[in-house]
Every structure is written in C-alpha cells, then in structure tokens.
C-alpha cells in the first residue's frame, strides 16, 4: 500500500504548486519598471513603438491603408493631414485654386528637398500622379483613375502643377491631394515592378527609414532639414509584436513606450490605474459592419435588407462585446464623424417594424418551426461568415444570430481563415459576412462612390436606377457644397436599404508611458501614432487632443 499513498501525494503536491503560484501573483505589483532616462525636456532621443504587423518595405505598394501612419513618416502629401478633416491644410503645396470646374492649379512650396538631397519639383508631382494612374495600381490609384478621374497632369513650371479632370472635380484639393503621397521621380522612374521594389524608401517626410528586418523591427532617423521643422524625437524604434497580450505586457513592463495598437476593452481598467501610464480615447473613423450579398435573393430585395438592418439591436452589441467602449451603429454608413457624412443618417433598431416588413413581403413561418419561409417556401436560413482570427467579431456574430432568430431568421456562423473572408467580395460565395472598414473606406467620400461601383457595396454592372441617377448628378456638380449634398442624398438612399449594415463604431483607446513622451496628438482616422505628433506644435496639421 505504501507506494499508492506516495502517488496520491505527488499528484496533490503538483496541483498545490499551481494554486499557490496563482494567489501569490494577484497582489504583487511589477517591481522594477525600466525607466528610460528621458527628462521632461521636449528633446527625446529614442522612442520604442510596438506595431502589430509587418508593413513590408513601406514603398506604398506592399502595404494597405492600415499602415498609412508609417508610410507618411517618410512621404508627404500635397495637403495634410488627410481627406478625413473638413479642410486639409496645404503641406507640400503652397496653394491650390480651381480655375474652372475641370482644372486646378497647384503651387508648390519652394526649397523642399528629398532625403537624398535632390530638390522636390513639380516634375515629381506629375510623375507620381501618372505613375499611380497608369502604372501598377495601388490603394491610391482609384483617386486618380476613377473618382475623380484626372486626364491631364502638366508641370507648367518647376513649382506649379496643372490638373485637368474628365468630369467636375470640386473636391480635388480636399480629397485626392490630401490622400496621395508624392514619390521621388529620379528614383521611381526606372522601377518597372513596384511590388518587388525592396530598397529603403526615399521621401520628403520628417523621418527616414534606416533599417527594416521583416517581422522584427523598423528603425527611423529624424530628418533634421524637414521643411516644417525638425522632429522632437531623434530616433523611432518599432518592434513588430503580433500577440496582443505580449504587446501590452511589454508596455506594462516598460520595454516599449507606446503600442500602435488600441487597448482591448478588458485591459482598460488595468492600464488606467498603472503609474506613468496614460490612456487617451480617440474617435477612430473605422466601423464593423455586416456585408450582405446583394446578388442573392432575398438580399436583392431592398425591403428585406431594410428589415435586416432594423432587426439588429446595436447598443446591446456595444455593451456586451465592446464593454461599452464604442457607439452603436445607428448612424449608418459611412462613418458619422467624417466631415463628408450626412449628419442625419439613421439606421435604428426597431424589431416590430422589421417583423412588419417581413410580413409585408409575406415571409411568414408556415411550418411553425420558428423560422420564416420565402414565398416559394425556402426557409430564411443563411450562413454568416467571419474571420477566425478575430474573437470579438465571432462573439458579435453570435449575438447577431440570436437577435435575428427573434425575428424568424436563422443564421449559422462559419469562422473561416481571414484570407478566405477577405476574398469573399470577389468570390461572391457568401450570404452575409462580418467585415470592418478602415478610415480609408469609411470616411473618404470618393471611396464611398468607388465602393458602390467596384462590388464592395454595389456593382456598376447591376442596375440600381435611383443610385445611378444620383451618381450622374454627382459627376456634374462643380462646387463642394453641391457635390456634398448630392453625396448626402446618395448616403440617405443607401442607408434606407443598406448592403452594409453597420453594427458599431468602436472607440479606440491608446495607452502610452508619460515618462517617455507626452506630446501625442490625435489625427482623425490615424489615432495618436503619426508624424504630426512628432512635429513642433505649430506644424501639427490641425491635430487635436482628446482627453
């Protein structure tokens, strides 16, 4: 019997060790926190910023809109900070004037040089716009080739550029010129395959990329001769940390100064009361929505889409999944905070109205199984696809499934690999899928038009009489005001029978160590990690601080 008792004892001992370690952990606060030797003086030698993913060699062609904040450290735009502000401030450009509905003349700031010392001239601007339009497409191309579509770009002299549009383009300065980073002609003119161009980028921006180890590290050096004043931070070291827990553990341990990743809701309280740590709320211009497959019946019926939108209680989603950190998606698509969004859009939650519409379409529950059937008898059963690497979206999907069940629609959730989900818009193999829209899609008005035509929200090959008419009218408007209110009417029409049912606008919270650097500013759609936070206060491009 002796060794039997010994075995039981050893098993007990093992589990005891685990429990002991557990309760021992909760009280002990982190003892040593590495203090970087920064003083309160504005001059900061090095800042360590964790980024969530590797963005490639920052050559505009291998990174999507998530990494604009990195690209714009190196490159500048004619106007700044972005199309998401009411009226962007001239940056590389001195001024821009519209001489007739189709032509703009832009004067450039003199004396600006590229990182390699070459002068910045109109030739660079002309080359860049043509390169985006005619060369290999990238995420900016549609601002030149479609909405608006610029036919002619001439460099009348070394400091002025003349743009001619195919149709009226009153908002050129506000949108396109504030969105396209300018490339150095003397480098890019002989790059035939931009996607394989892996050299370190040369731009005009406040920082210069000096080292890039894929999936590991970026290192930027300050550009002392920056025409808007030399940056307050001399060196930026950006490690790539993919795991959220690892990121915030490093921040807490003082191994990084700030994370270019928003703090997940469940960590807010912990980080709010950490010493030397500050948490700032920003209104991001991103949203999470349900994309409906408008080509498949019954989604092709506008009334059915309206019923779906009415059946979802968005506030409950925010309270449960985001723990209240965000706003219910009752202001429709695109993002309400964008200056280009119709302020009085309304996508309410009204379960009875939804049921009424469904009955009106006589989608009723004939066989009494709690699920309605269409006229032809097929039950309203659809698949909801979601990326398996986004736990919050999967949880959102579960809640939406419960809510639609209340109105007699059954969903089955399929968590798929993110690559597959992103490809659904093109492959069309879905009923509904959860996606998110970055500021570039949710706040840029021209992008809203492009998405109506490129398949995201609608397809130009598919007849949509009222929307097509408004689109023609939009093309004719010559002033910003006229264009804006045609846009508003399009947005109002869209949200009445949305093919993108907005669920919520998540708030973003950023945490940073105050002892490292505390000049962080917010630029709409960029959060607080962007080049304007490092520039002298007078050159902050309209960035504003939210408490």
């Amino acid at each position, binding site marked *: 019997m002796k060794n039997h008792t010994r075995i039981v004892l050893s098993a007990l001992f093992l589990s005891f060790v685990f429990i002991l370690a557990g309760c021992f952990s909760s009280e002990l606060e982190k003892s040593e926190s590495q203090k970087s030797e920064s003083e309160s003086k504005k001059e900061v030698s090095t800042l360590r910023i964790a980024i969530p993913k590797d963005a490639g060699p920052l050559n505009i062609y291998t990174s999507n809109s998530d990494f604009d904040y990195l690209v714009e450290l190196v490159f500048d735009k004619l106007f700044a900070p972005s199309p998401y502000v009411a009226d962007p401030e001239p940056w590389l450009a001195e001024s821009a004037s519209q001489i007739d509905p189709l032509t703009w003349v832009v004067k450039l700031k003199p004396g600006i040089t590229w990182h390699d010392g070459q002068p910045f001239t109109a030739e660079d601007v002309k080359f860049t716009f043509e390169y985006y339009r005619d060369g290999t497409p990238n995420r900016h191309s549609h601002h030149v080739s479609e909405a608006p579509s610029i036919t002619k770009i001439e460099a009348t002299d070394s400091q002025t550029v003349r743009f001619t549009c195919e149709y009226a383009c009153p908002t050129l300065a506000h949108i396109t010129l504030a969105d396209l980073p300018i490339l150095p002609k003397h480098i890019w003119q002989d790059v035939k395959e931009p996607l394989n161009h892996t050299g370190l980028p040369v731009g005009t921006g406040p920082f210069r990329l000096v080292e890039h180890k894929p999936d590991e590290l970026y290192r930027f050096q300050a550009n002392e001769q920056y025409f808007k004043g030399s940056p307050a931070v001399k060196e930026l070291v950006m490690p790539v940390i993919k795991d959220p*827990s690892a990121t915030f*553990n490093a921040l807490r341990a003082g191994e990084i100064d700030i994370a270019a990743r928003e703090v997940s809701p*469940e960590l807010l309280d*912990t980080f709010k009361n950490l010493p030397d740590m500050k948490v700032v709320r920003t209104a991001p211009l991103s949203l999470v929505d349900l994309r409906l497959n408008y080509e498949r019946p019954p989604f092709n019926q506008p009334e059915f889409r309206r019923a779906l939108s009415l059946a979802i209680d968005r506030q409950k989603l925010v309270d449960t999944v985001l723990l209240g950190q965000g706003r219910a998606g009752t202001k429709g698509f695109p993002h309400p905070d964008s200056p280009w969004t119709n302020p009085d859009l309304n996508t309410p939650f009204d379960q009875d109205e939804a049921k009424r519409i469904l009955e009106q379409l006589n989608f009723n529950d004939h066989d009494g199984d709690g699920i309605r059937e269409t006229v032809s008898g097929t039950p309203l059963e659809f698949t909801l696809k979601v990326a398996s690497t986004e*736990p919050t979206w*999967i949880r959102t999907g*579960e809640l939406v499934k419960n809510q639609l069940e209340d109105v007699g629609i059954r969903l*089955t959730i399929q968590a*798929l690999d993110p690559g597959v989900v992103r490809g659904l818009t093109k492959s069309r193999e879905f009923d509904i899928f959860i996606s998110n829209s970055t500021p570039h899609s949710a706040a840029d008005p021209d992008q809203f038009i492009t998405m109506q035509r490129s398949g995201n929200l609608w397809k130009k090959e598919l007849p949509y009489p009222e929307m097509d008419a408004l689109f023609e009218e939009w093309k004719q408007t010559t002033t910003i005001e006229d264009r804006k209110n045609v846009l508003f009417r399009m947005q109002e029409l869209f949200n009445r029978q949305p093919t993108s049912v907005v669920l919520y606008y998540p708030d973003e919270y950023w945490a940073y160590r105050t002892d490292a650097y505390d000049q962080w500013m917010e630029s709409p759609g960029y959060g607080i990690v962007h080049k304007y936070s490092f520039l002298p206060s007078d050159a902050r491009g309209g960035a504003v601080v939210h408490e």
Partner: protein
Amino acid sequence: MNTPIARYLGFTGFAILVFMLLLAILGPFIVPYDPNELIAPAFQPPSWSYLLGTNDIGQDIFSELIMSARVSLLVGVVSALIATLFGVIAGLVAGYFGGWAETILMRLVDVKLTLPFLPLMIVVAVFLGPGLITQILVIALVIWAPMARELRSQVLTARRRGFVEAAEAIGAGGRYILRRHLLPNVTPLIIPQFVRAANTGILMETSLSFLGLGDPTVKSWGMMLFYANSRSAFLTDAWLWWLLPPGICITLSVLSFSLLGYALEERVRPRLRTSWRFGASERSANKVRPLKREPQEQDPESPEPLLSVQQLSVEYVTANGAIRAVDSVSFSVRRGEVLGIVGESGSGKTTMAAALMQLLKPPGRLTGGRMLFAGNDLASLDAAELKRLRNNRIALIPQAAMNALNPVYTVQKQLVEAILAHQKIRRSEARIRANHLLQLVGITPDRARAYPHELSGGMRQRVVIAIALANNPSLVIADEPTTGLDVIVQAEILELLTDLQSRLELAMIFISHDLSVVLSVADRIAIMLEGKIVDQSSVNSGVFHPNHPYSQRLQAALPRLKSKHTIPFS
C-alpha cells in the same frame, strides 16, 4: 498480470476516463446555465452563482467547461478510431502481402512523416473550412502513419511465427491467414496503439482550436483557451479561473488515456513486468542463522569436498501459491571432480545453478539448506563478499551462452573486464592475459577485436568459457553449455571442456538434459526429477548403474548404433 504500479495507474486512468465520459454524456443535463446564453456581465470573477466567473461576453465558464468535455473527447476518440482503422489495414496489407503494396504504403508513410503535421492541418482545415468533421479527418490523417509502420513490423514478426507458416504449408490462402491467425495475434497490440492515438488526438484538437482553426461556434476546451489568450487573460487575474481549468481538464482527459495506455502496454510486453534486483537473491525470513565464521581458505589437499550442498530448497511464489522448484537437494563436489546433473526440462536444474551463484531473481527465493563452499555458507555472504567470489572462486557458464556476450563490446574488452574485476593489474597486462585465455580455448588472437555478432555460435561459447576461466576459479558450473550447437561443434566444445578441466584440475558441475552428453564427461552423475535428486552413482568410462526406475528408463532410451536388415532401393 500487471505489477502493482501498473494496476494502480491503469485503475486511476480508467476512473478518470469514466468521470470524463460521464461529463461528456451528462453534460447538457447537469450544467447550471446554458453556456451559449449571455447570463451575466463579462469578465466576472468567480462567485457563488458563477463558480468560475464569466468569460469575455458573459457566458458561465463553469457550464462552458462541462459542455466542452463532449467535443474534446469526441474529436480525440473518433479521430483515433479512424486513424487506427487506416493504420491497421495499411499495416496488415503492407506486412502480409509485401511486394509493391508494401513499398507504396511505406513510402506513403515516409512522405506523410516529412510533411509537418500542424501546417498540413492548417492548409486542409482552411480548404475544407473549420468544423468538427474537418478536424477529425485531419487529425486522423496525421496519426495513422506511425501506427501503420508499427503494425506492419508487428505483422512481419507474427508472420514468421511457426503456426502461421504451418497454415501456409497446409495450403492456406492469404485472406484465411490474415483472418484466422494474424488479426487475433495483432489485436492485443492494436489497443495500446489506439489509446496513444486518442491521446495525440485530443492534444491536436486543442492546438488547432488554440490557433483559431477550431470551430468557434462549438464549445471545446481548446476554444476556451483561444478566447482566454486572445482576450489577454494573462495580464489580469482572470488566468486563474479562465486559463487554468480548461488546461487541467485537457490534461486530465489525456492523462486517463496515457495511464490506460501504460497499463495495457505492460500487459502486452511482459519484459516491462520483470522487477530486477542486484546482489544476493532475497532470502526468506525463516532461513537458518548461519554461524558467523571468518571466511577462511580451505587448504587444497584436505579430504573435505570443495562444495557440499545440504537440503537446498528454492521456492517460486506464483499467483497460485508457492512452487518448490528445488526440494531439499544434497550433493557434494570434490576438487578436480566432474559432477554431472541430468534432468529433463522443468526438473529444477537451472534454478539450482542460479541458487549456487546467488543469481536467483524474484519471485524465486532460497527457502532452506546450506551451500558450504570451501567452508563458507554461500547463502550467508553479503553483496561485497559475493562480488569477490563470483567468477573468481566460482564461475558460471550460463545456459544459452549464445547471447551472454554484450553485443556492443568487443570480445577482448569483455574478457579484460572479467579479469580486472578481480585482479588489480594494468590494463595492458590484462590484455595479454586475455589473449592467452583466448588461445587456451582455441581462438586465434586476431579474432580478439571481433564483436559477438561476428562470431559463430561455437566461437561465442568458447569466449564465454574463457571468461569463466579468467581468474582460474576452483569450481565451474556449466549449465547446458552445448545446447543449441551443431553436433560437430558440440563435440569440439565438450572435448575442450574435459581437456581444460583435467589440465586445470577444476571441480565442475555439468548440467544437461542429454544423458549421453553428461555420461561422456562426468565422474559422478545425479539424476534430478521434479526438484529432487532421485539417483546418484559413479560413472566409469561412460557407463553408470542406475537403481531408480526413472534413471533406468533414461538409460534405456539412449540411442544405439546397430545395423538392421532392410532391402535397399535401387
């Protein structure tokens, strides 16, 4: 039967498994809340109403934990079943039919083993879309390969067994042999394989879910860990009640299979059951108190016998009571005399040899009698004294000497080792002595560097004899030294033994089941029957005068060479 440990572990494993199965079956009925329902605010710490608190969207973790048992076990067990099915079929076909089927299957297994398992899982899961069926198929696809190889080698071994070849000789076809003989023989080996597969299956399901490739709409421990990790349970205290319990449940269910697997494995492979003791064999408590006398050296000429064994008895404790293998045996051997012991299989002669050398392994035990060797009782020697005695004063030539040599050392190294065990001389000198010994037993020194497997049976036997004589012992016990050897080689070895015995004036106990062999070497002979010596008599020039009926029958059975009348064939 199993050893106590294995029985205990097997029992614990079984108990845990039953508990887990109950959890899986009764889950939905005993769970306090519906795990899919959002019943409380998220991230609640444990409280009386929610024993393990709530998860990131407010579902009760305790209910989730219970409900998850079903999926994790289901995936693990079902994938193991499918994998075992594939493995067995592939193993049997490859093992039995061989030829191109075997080559293809085995190369398929090789290819499968080069493909890293997790990426293969990811790609297939991506292609088929996550879901339980995909997981089960993918895991089964990964586990079957090693099983196929293991079963194939077992089938190959089974196929060489006598009764399988007998059936083939009678004219049985492949299918008959597979069904009638191979399958029943291989089945007991399949069960531990299946258990190990289930073990791997559960672990893989957890890894898949942890990487987010599981089916999130289904409750499983792996998914709980996925959400816990992605909602950074580390950084808050939530890890205690959100991260720990699923891990413990996974470990428990895998543990149940591992423990069962270990117990079953031991039942199938008997060697694992042997318990091994070094040094003197255990003496039963009630042995006679030996008189503690200084071990003195007996002068060579004294008339007393070199070894006198009095009422020696050895018992084996088995499941159904103690069996007395050696029953109060008495005999003696004088210096330079050869005592032959003849007994058929099971007569206790080998047990007695082991007892003399104090090499009895449990469950064998010395239960009585004394063995006086040069005045000392062997039974009372302690480990150190025994160590000094073995192969120094008394040497053993073991049964089945064919594999008594360590396969990984050269012959010379094992000889030198035997010498240095008792003689404090320099290694180079020991090497010279070793070569001399090899010559003594008729092996040319150039073979000294050879390994045992490079020598024939006869040569290996000679090396063992050389080892026995390494420290010129006064008594040599030869236990069936020539069994299994070729008839001509047998004659040569006997020639060598008798020659060495007379030249070195060794006392020798020659044990064999073959009366004719013993008669050709022994001065005196003892006949053993069921543990007792029934007859002792002297032998002169190969003839002895048996007075016990059994020994008379033995003598009558001795083959004779005489002509008989047969008409030849053309």
